[in-house]
């Protein structure tokens, strides 16, 4: 009776099974004849490993696996093509291509890489375009839903949504509701249907004598002269409807600036100085869009939340920056004697404008306001406060700063449905963008205010007329003295 042999470790059975799985690539005749022998020899080798005579890596990776591969090739070649199965032909073809690629790698690498990059770009472009189209379709659905509401505010917001679609079509490289997404993927095209719809909706809003400030603000933002809309008229009406709101005078200033109307600019600045607040009603916008999405059953749809967010965050440094950059540019200008070219009353108007903007509940104008105060004031206490406030607002804006050799990463993007819903919940409670952002940060476990180790570069405290995000300096050629 033979002595009882110790049982093999479990891993040997698993390895043997894996090894045998690869036998399907061997010619059938060889496999049938010697398959069991191969398994037996493999098992014997594994037992050497189990006894500690060899390292597993040496035995399996350096001996047995290469041996199996070379055996496949050798036996396949010797068996002849007639006995080869289709899968073996396929494997042989792959091996031949791989071998040819290895031999001629220098010659074929550049065109192959070019082709691979081109294919990848095409695929990315296709995916991006589908995503953009889906987002656009979603925006259109919400706009149609709002347009059905007889309320002037809803119709004006619908016009703004159509405007965002038109902007993206006409200028896909920088559209207010699709920042960074339309890049390079679509050529500009005319937005005839959207333009027509905007015109109809704005006509309805302006015909409504009860249209309030919210409706008129959104109407002013949607109104573009080249579409046949009289923006000056909309803003003139807004000036009466919400005269105490600095945002109305910001729009008036930008409108006058576009026409290079110096008296108009002076008037807007003077009126701005008399305003008592700076309100863009972005909290209302968030609530209205969220409510519309919920009514349509779109609450958890990524594109809807992204749309709402983009509409809220749009114009971060847009219309607000026209007046701000004009003030800063003038404050920076010096005559040949080095004296400021800025008239005292203009300086007072700008100062007042920055104070109001700094208190805005919207992040963009608030940043502009604190920037302006930091630049304008000679008061050290105000400058210190401006630095604190700017740190806080940049923290909320989620910007990254180079700090101690690394980027300070403030996660400001959505990565999941719960994060989107948390954003929506934070904005649904109102109070404006800054208050909502604080709630959102807290809900994500982040500090509502800039942590002590979060810092911003000094250059952000004293912006010159060459603010990096503006690019509109040349527009303000005339001076207000």
């Amino acid at each position, binding site marked *: *009776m*033979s002595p009882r042999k110790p049982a093999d470790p479990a891993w040997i059975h698993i390895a043997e099974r894996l090894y045998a799985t690869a036998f399907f690539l061997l010619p059938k005749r*060889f496999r049938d*004849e*010697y398959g*069991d*022998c*191969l398994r*037996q*020899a*493999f098992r*014997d*080798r594994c037992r050497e490993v189990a006894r500690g005579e060899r390292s597993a890596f040496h035995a399996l990776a350096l*001996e*047995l696996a*290469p*041996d*199996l591969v*070379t*055996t*496949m090739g*050798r*036996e396949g070649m*010797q068996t002849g093509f007639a006995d080869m199965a289709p899968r073996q032909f396929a494997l042989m073809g792959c091996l031949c291509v791989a071998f040819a690629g290895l031999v001629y790698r220098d010659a074929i690498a550049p065109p192959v890489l070019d082709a691979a990059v081109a294919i990848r770009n095409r695929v990315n472009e296709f995916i991006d375009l589908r995503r953009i189209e889906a987002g656009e379709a979603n925006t259109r659905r919400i706009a149609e839903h709002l347009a059905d509401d007889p309320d002037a505010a809803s119709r004006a917001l619908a016009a703004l949504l159509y405007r965002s679609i038109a902007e993206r079509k006409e200028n896909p490289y920088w559209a207010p509701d699709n920042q960074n997404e339309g890049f390079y993927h679509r050529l500009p095209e005319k937005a005839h249907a959207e333009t027509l719809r905007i015109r109809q909706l704005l006509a309805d809003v302006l015909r409504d004598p009860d249209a309030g400030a919210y409706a008129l603000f959104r109407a002013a933002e949607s109104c573009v002269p080249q579409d046949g809309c009289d923006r000056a008229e909309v803003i003139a009406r807004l000036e009466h409807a919400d005269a105490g709101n600095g945002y109305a005078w910001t729009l008036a200033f930008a409108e006058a600036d576009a026409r290079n109307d110096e008296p108009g600019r002076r008037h807007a600045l003077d009126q701005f100085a008399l305003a008592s607040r700076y309100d863009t009603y972005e909290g209302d916008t968030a609530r209205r869009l969220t409510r519309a999405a919920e009514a349509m059953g779109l609450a958890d749809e990524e594109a809807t939340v992204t749309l709402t967010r983009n509409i809220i965050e749009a114009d971060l440094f847009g219309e607000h920056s026209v007046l701000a950059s004009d003030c800063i540019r003038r404050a920076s200008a010096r005559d040949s004697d080095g004296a400021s070219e800025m008239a005292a009353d203009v300086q007072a108007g700008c100062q007042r404008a920055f104070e109001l903007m700094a208190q805005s509940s919207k992040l963009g104008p608030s940043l502009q306001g604190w920037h302006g105060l930091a630049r304008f004031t000679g008061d050290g206490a105000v400058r210190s406060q401006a630095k604190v406030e700017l740190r806080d607002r940049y923290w909320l804006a989620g910007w990254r700063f180079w700090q101690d050799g690394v980027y300070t990463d403030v996660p400001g993007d959505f990565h999941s449905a719960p994060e989107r819903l948390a954003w929506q919940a934070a904005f649904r409670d109102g109070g404006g963008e800054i208050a909502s952002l604080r709630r959102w940060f807290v809900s994500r476990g982040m500090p509502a205010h800039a942590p002590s180790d979060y810092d911003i570069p000094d250059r952000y405290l004293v912006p010159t007329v060459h603010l990096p995000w503006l690019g509109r300096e040349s527009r303000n050629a005339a001076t207000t003295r």
Partner: protein
Amino acid sequence: MTPAAPTDPVLTPAMYLILLALLEGDRHGYAIMQSVESLTAGSTRLGPGTLYGSIRKMIEAGLIEETGERPDPQLDDERRRYYRIAAAGRKAVTAETDRLDRLVAHARPYLRAV
């Protein structure tokens, strides 16, 4: 240089080593692998695929044959297959050894000079 006779079988290094291992007696596959490793002082370890690929070709060439006899059935797994060197195999291994011997003899004076 003396050319090899046309009747000499062409042996791969693996076949030659297997034949040398079988000169010592009948062996099963794993025993052949161990003999080869021993013969070459561990410098050559035949893998299962190389071993049985060579065995298949040598059986077809009549250099070795499978044997039903088992040296010690009590101590072995009955599923193991044993191989024995055939007359043609002895002739082939002798011819190959002679050829290598001639090469060694040819090289030796030059290597001593070096």
